[in-house]
């Protein structure tokens, strides 16, 4: 097929027929008889649980499967008229842009500009054309200020955008994205989705996007394909997909759809705008938020007090600090981000009480991870102090904690067993950590951080997790919330840095919002997560009622307020 015909979109962007694939040494195939066609300019959302086969399907569409990963393949994959199984990723590079989950493995150059320019250089474009393309894609992704930076000085979110720029710079006809928002804050995540929609509408780029946080992108999609155990479980319009999830897999339902489903309102909405329209048409707006008394971790009810760090008199403050699991006072931390030293934390005052569940939120680079690292003693403050009581910190890569081939060897003796018991993993003492599921590995890593930090009765002090929900489906997030509930019930303070507002709304009592190294908001989660545009849950954006952030709470409100 001629280049011109491909450009004009004569061929489907992606045509998959009867694709069956098994990774080398795998006991079961990752994809089974998958057939799918994506038209030029179509925006397709790939939904499904973790390990359902979404990533493998994307890898097959860009030629990495089977060319790079090996394994056995059957069926046919065509990308803009090219046979992807015969051609391989190099030949497909001109037509396909691919963005994988982990941005750290997707940069191969030392500077941002060189990274973005690399695909053009490999293609043999002239220097002038390359410079223009780099400039344009940097402008489109709002990263021109990063062009001169070294890639090893970028945050995860910045890396993600740079990797996306490198995938888009050749102006491919098909863009494949594997959970591109997993490392992004809500603002950047929304920006990315709408940028993809704009590329899709204005450039006619076909987009296939695999995501767990469906509420972010369902409204932007033309079509949803759900993958279940390596097979296509559903293929159709977003609204039909939501109806399908109700019967087939409720964990794939968006919060707004769950809200409507619980409140028995039809049809299920594909986004905030759709939900508000339906509620408006039916006159189903809640009458008054304060009329309801639905228990919620972030909802302060009459007569109930939650441990919060409100400004108080000196003596009371000192007493609270003495009892706190974490007490940070006037904490300043300076880091070198490659452009010289800068203050990443600027005079943070924060107390977290035992038993409290706190979500630490903010944009990429706001200082969340730095605060956790300073509290754990990995970073020295330039001023102020952070004192934590028996702090166990789990960083973003739990696998970094696992160095031995038997769980029991990582955690010897009675203290090790107590730590395993604290996270519900005592049954796996003889297992090889590599054989554990992602969620179990995360629990084991937490147990390693907790070992020896439990008091005489096995109660942890401060448990801190940095972005623990990356790449997690809702089922695994629910498991994590159950673990947090258990730890908090034992008396542990739980502090979690996260970009996931829905997860924060489910687990947290309190949300601390950081902005450019300072605390810009600190209060009950229901209050913080219902009072804005970006750091707000989908339910909060639909109902716009202060204090209502979860589907369960919202549904009760709708039931009480429905006309």
């Amino acid at each position, binding site marked *: 097929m001629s280049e011109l015909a491909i450009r004009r979109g004569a061929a489907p962007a992606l045509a998959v027929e009867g694709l069956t694939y098994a990774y080398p040494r795998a006991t079961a195939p990752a994809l089974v008889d998958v057939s799918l066609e994506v038209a030029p300019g179509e925006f397709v959302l790939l939904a499904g649980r973790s390990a359902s086969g979404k990533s493998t399907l994307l890898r097959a569409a860009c030629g*990495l499967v089977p060319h790079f990963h090996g394994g056995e393949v059957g069926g046919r994959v065509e990308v803009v008229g090219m046979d992807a199984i015969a051609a391989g990723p190099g030949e497909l590079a001109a037509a396909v842009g691919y963005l994988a989950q982990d941005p750290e*493995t997707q940069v*191969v150059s030392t500077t941002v500009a060189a990274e973005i320019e690399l695909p053009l250089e*490999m293609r043999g474009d002239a220097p002038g054309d390359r410079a223009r393309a780099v400039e344009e894609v940097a402008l489109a992704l709002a990263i021109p200020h990063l062009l*001169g930076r070294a890639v090893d000085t970028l945050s995860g979110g910045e890396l993600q955008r740079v990797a996306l720029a490198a995938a888009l710079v050749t102006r491919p006809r098909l863009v494949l994205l594997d959970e591109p928002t997993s490392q992004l804050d809500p603002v950047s995540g929304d920006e990315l989705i709408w940028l993809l929609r704009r590329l899709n509408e204005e450039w006619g780029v076909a987009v296939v996007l695999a995501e767990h946080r469906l509420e972010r992108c369902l409204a932007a999609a033309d079509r949803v394909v759900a993958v279940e155990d390596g097979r296509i479980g559903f293929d159709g319009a977003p609204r039909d997909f939501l109806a399908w999830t109700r019967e087939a897999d409720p964990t794939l339902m968006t919060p707004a759809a769950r809200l409507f489903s619980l409140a028995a309102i039809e049809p299920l909405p594909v986004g905030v705008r759709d939900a508000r329209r339906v509620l408006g048409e039916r006159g189903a707006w809640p009458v008054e938020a304060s009329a309801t008394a639905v228990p919620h971790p972030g909802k302060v009810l009459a007569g109930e007090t939650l441990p919060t760090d409100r400004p108080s008199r000196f003596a009371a403050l000192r007493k609270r600090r003495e009892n706190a699991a974490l007490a940070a006072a006037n904490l300043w931390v300076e880091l070198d981000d490659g452009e010289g030293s800068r203050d990443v934390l600027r005079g943070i005052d924060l107390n977290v009480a035992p038993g409290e569940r706190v979500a630490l939120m903010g944009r990429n680079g706001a200082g969340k991870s730095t605060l956790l690292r300073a509290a754990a003693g990995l970073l020295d403050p330039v001023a102020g102090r952070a004192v934590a009581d028996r702090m166990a910190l789990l960083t973003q890569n739990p696998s*970094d904690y696992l160095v*031995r081939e038997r769980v029991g060897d990582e955690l010897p*003796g009675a203290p090790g067993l107590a730590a395993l018991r604290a996270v519900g993993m005592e049954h796996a003492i003889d297992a090889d950590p590599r054989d554990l599921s992602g969620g179990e590995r995360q629990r084991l890593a937490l147990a390693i951080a907790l070992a020896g930090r439990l008091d005489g009765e096995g109660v942890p002090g401060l448990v801190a997790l940095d972005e623990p929900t990356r790449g997690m489906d809702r089922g695994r997030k629910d498991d994590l919330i159950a673990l947090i509930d258990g730890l908090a019930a034992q008396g542990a303070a739980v502090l979690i840095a996260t970009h996931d507002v829905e997860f924060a709304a489910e687990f947290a009592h309190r949300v601390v919002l950081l902005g450019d190294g300072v605390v810009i908001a600190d209060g009950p989660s229901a209050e913080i997560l219902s009072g804005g545009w970006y750091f707000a849950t989908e339910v909060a954006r639909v109902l716009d009622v202060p204090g209502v952030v979860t589907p369960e709470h919202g549904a009760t409100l709708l039931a009480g307020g429905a006309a």
Partner: protein
Amino acid sequence: MRSAFAYIPRRGPLQQARVGAAVSYLGALVVVAFLYSNPLVLVAAGLAACMAGWLAGARSAVRAALRMGLGLALLIVIVNALVVDRGETVLARLGHWPLLGQVDITLEAIVAGVSIGLRAAVTMVAFAVYSACVDPDRVLRALRPVAARSALTASLVSRLVPVAAADAGRLRDAAQLRGPAAAPVGRGPLARRLLAGSLDRAVDVAATLELRGYSLGGPRGARRREPSRHDARFYAAAVVVLAAAIVGKVVGADDFHAYPRIHIGTGASTLAVCAIVLVSGLAPLRVRRKGRIAKESANSAGRVRATGLPPSLKEAQGV
């Protein structure tokens, strides 16, 4: 935080030299380390590598490599002293050990271990200087004609060290965050984990290279060659060191044996090889000719400004 081994663009001759020239120069020092056992020559090669890194501005890389290299050398000395019982000068009799049997520590075994350890340390320092001073982007491009069909080879050569350095930082943090009752992270398990993890990630990086069209073999000549006036100096240093090393080896400059009694040759040929190797460490020294200083500083200011530009713009500006 940046790894000590991370490449940092600088205006030094070693950084500006073509990849081939820089690799030939540093490779020559590694060849000496593998060719010779005489501790004097090995010390000279080590000092030359340190000097090269120091003059090129990669001081933290040299310090870190020395820490690791000398640590490894010490480990080798201890292991060699425990497992080898050859040699006539017994320093200590440690009795019968399980698995090892009768353990006698001899001076000869220690010196033999020093020789092997020095070889490892020299290699590590030279590799650290390479990692900190040779632009991996240019290595990647230089490798394309020979490794176009194997992105994995290219990523292993150009990215394994930066990837491993980043992983080492994360693993170090995780080791610090382990609870006091968790099993301590021994060097062995940590090294295994680091190597396995780095290889896995290098494979992922190779996949990215494939996706960027590395194996396409695009039109030749799309990118201008980037010669440097320092190339000749490094090629010459490499040739002289290699020639001296080979000739020296033939004429007996590597006059050394540890058993049954230590003999370290200090003849003229050995000292000559030491001197040549040692002087080669000065190759990255920046030499400024009078009268050119003003012009060169103006040019170099331009270069500093251009380091953040895309390579295509750098080419357009003749940087």
